[in-house]
Each structure stands twice: as C-alpha cells, then as structure tokens.
C-alpha cells in the first residue's frame, strides 16, 4: 500500500452511476439537488425553481436552485427571485438578495418597483441590493429613495448604503434623514457613521 501508481492515460476517476433517477420531489435531498442541477441553463426553469424554493427546506437544494437562477442571468430570473424578497423565511430572503446581486444587469431595474413596495422589509432589501450593486444608477436610486423614505428602519439601512457610495450628494441626503427623525437616536448615530465614512473616502 502507500502511494498508488498513476493510471496511464486518464487522471480522472470515473463518476459512479446514480442508483436512482433524480426528481425535484424525491425524498432524498441529494437527488432533489441533482434534479435542480439538471435544470441549469434552461430559461424555462425559472417558475419551477422559484416554486421549489418556496417549498424546499434543505439548504443544499436551495443553494443549487439559487445558483441555477443566478446562472440564467436573465430578466425573467431576476423577477422570479425578487418575489422572494418578501418571503417570511429570512434564509430565503438572503438567498434571493445574493442571487440578485450576482445579476446586476437585470437586478438594477428592479430597484424602482421594490422601493415602492408597501412592506418596509422589502424596501430594506432593495437598499441592501443597491449597496451590493455599487454602480452609479444604484447610487442615484439610493439618493432618490432617501429624499422621500418615511420608515426609520429603511432610513437606517439607507444611511449605511449611502455611506458606502462615496457620492458628494450623499452628504445632504444623510443630513436630511437625520433632520427628518430628530427623536431617533439610533438613526442619528447611523447618519453620523455614514458621514464619517464619506469624509474618509
């Protein structure tokens, strides 16, 4: 025993044959995951993957589904994923955010409708997404939302995101947020921290 001699011709071990056919509804998560992987690159798989994500509890299967959607990098995929930003499941929301951030071309256009959502949590995710996208259009959108946002928790996230933009226009926008909520000390702190970051940038 010890180190084996290299096999001539091929460095690659052969794949073991799967004992069972993968299915999206298979009780074994590894076979559900494999069924998801088989959908990679299929532009018609968006609705199937989104529906699966809403039901699926296994993290491995979820990650594979999010990756399949991210790989599609299409407007349809971005819209499908964005719906999950309002899901009650935090892990699903975070997965959706990461997936959207990986398709900036299509995610950028979603900021506007997401910013109008009645649910402040969805608007917070939109702000986080804009922070991830880090482009000029996302920066401009953050400034426009900051001018009208009335929820202090959204504004707290806006402050953090604006602090990372390096935009000179972020300074008056942040000062306006602080002035809008004089009785929210946590918001004053968030604005102060963001202003400091902008000055240091």
């Amino acid at each position, binding site marked *: 025993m010890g180190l*084996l001699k290299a096999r001539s011709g091929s460095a690659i071990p052969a794949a073991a044959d799967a004992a069972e056919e993968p299915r999206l509804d298979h009780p074994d998560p590894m076979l559900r995951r494999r069924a998801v992987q088989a959908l990679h690159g299929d532009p018609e798989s968006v609705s199937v993957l989104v529906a699966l994500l809403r039901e699926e509890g296994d993290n491995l299967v979820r990650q594979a589904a999010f990756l399949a959607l991210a790989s599609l990098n299409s407007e349809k995929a971005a819209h499908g994923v964005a719906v999950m930003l309002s899901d009650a499941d935090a892990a699903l929301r975070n997965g959706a955010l990461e997936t959207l951030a990986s398709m900036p071309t299509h995610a950028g256009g979603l900021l506007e409708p997401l910013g109008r959502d009645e649910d402040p949590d969805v608007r917070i995710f939109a702000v986080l997404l804009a922070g991830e996208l880090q482009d000029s259009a996302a920066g401009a959108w953050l400034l426009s939302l900051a001018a009208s946002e009335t929820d202090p928790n959204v504004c707290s996230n806006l402050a953090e995101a604006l602090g990372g933009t390096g935009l000179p226009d972020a300074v008056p926008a942040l000062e306006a947020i602080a002035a809008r909520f004089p009785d929210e000390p946590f918001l004053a702190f968030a604005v102060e921290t963001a202003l400091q970051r902008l000055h240091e940038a």
Partner: protein
Amino acid sequence: MASFPAPDLGAARISAEDVTVFCDFFYKKTGISMDASRRYFIDRRLEERMAANECRSFREYLSLVKFQPGGAEMQALINEMTVNETYFFREDYQFNCLTKRMLDEIANRKDPRRERIRIWSVPCSTGEEPYSIAISILENWPRASDFDIEIIASDIDTRALGKARNGIYQARALHRVPQRVRDTYFRKVDSESWQVVEDLRDSIDFGIVNVSDPVQMSRMRGIDVIFCRNLLIYFDDLSRRQTAENFFDALNPGGFVALGHSESMSRISPIFLPRKFPEALVHQRPLA
C-alpha cells in the same frame, strides 16, 4: 543577409473594446475573470499569440481561437494567460493539517482493504503542490502504508502540466525543502536543477481539468481532500459559487477543501462546514 521585415504587430491594434471582448470570451471559456485594468499583461500575451499565428487583427485572432478544430490555440492562450509561480511546501501548515488531522479522520471512516484515499490538487501548476503533498504523506503520516493513496493533480495549462510531469526544478522552487528530504526524493540533474525521483513522479496522476467545465467536473467524484489554493481569487462570485458546488459533488461526505490563505469559503457558499484545526482552517462537506 536580407530578410523580410517582421509584420507590424504593435499593441495599438488591440483596443480597449478588444480587451473587453477578450475578457468576456475568456471568462466564458475558463471562469477566470481577467481584469481589464491589467491591459499591459493582457496586451503582451495577446500580441505574442497573434504574432505566433500571424494574425493581423484581434478579430482575426479571436475567430481562430473560437473556431479552430481541436482547440489548440485556445489551449495555447490559456497557457499564456495563467500564472504558474509557486514552490515546494508553500503554505505548508495545510500539509501539516493534512497529515496530523484530516487524513486520520478520513482513514477512520474507511476500510483499508477496500477503500482508497483520494487527494486532488487543483490547480497543480508545475507540480510543486502535489509533490509536496506526496512527500508530506510519506514523511509525516504514520498510516501511509496501511492505505492505498491516490493523488490526482490537474491544471488547465498543458504547458505547466508538462513541466509537472517532468518534475525538474530550480533552486528557487526548492528553497523550503530540507536537505534530507531533497536527498531522498530528488536527484541532481546539473548544478542548477533537481528532478523528482521516478517513483514519486509516477505516483501523481496528472491531467487537464477545467473546474468551470460542468462536463469535466462531473467526472470528478470520490475525492477525500481537495487542495484548491489561489485559484478562486481569479473567479467572479458566480464562478466561485459554481466551483464550490462542483467541489461539493466531487467530495465524499466528510471530505475536505483547503483554500488559499486569502480565500474564504464562508464568503462563497454556505454548503461547507468550517473546520478549525490547530494547524489550519479547512472546509468540510457534511457527513450526512
């Protein structure tokens, strides 16, 4: 003696737009995200390949790369664009972790009469890493003779693989190899170079694998430890996530991934468990 002037293949013929087109193409083929800001590096290498193929424009060269039967020029381009600077026992704390911790965990789950231990070094570059792994095991893992151990080493760069198979190294690559180890596993070729002994060269299974190619990756299964150091830093987020999923599939349950010191699996994908050993932090595919 008179000679024809060399064709004018100056850098001016590669525009910023060409570089962007090239970066997109190279990313789709390899998963490697070339930074367009590295214009000098990219231009120089493209110019060399264009000159070698007597292409008079970038477009002409790109057509050759895309449509050449057999893909020889694509391979030559990959060889030019990838970086192969390394040395023996680089970041050796991970090899210490392998022989002190990981291999024992893996061995305890295996029947030595029927099951082999399989280790994969990717990218293996010019071979310093897989040979370091082999030497570390032979020198430092007391149970090495109880198991069949298979070391697979792969790279996307065929020129680097050729050097790895030859196993000839200069003093610079060997500066961290103790004299006793050098005397045991190398033979002197000349005053400047040493060659890995034949037995050790024959024990590494070198081959070409593109970790971004789903077809090639689907053939990699049953691995116990993957060393993938300083590769993912060249990938974008999506390619990193895809590679993490591919590694998960390639590993046996309980298998480990060792990344480079500046790389963090937790920032790439949540599907691995971080394992903090005294020697190193590695990433484990859950047992169940």
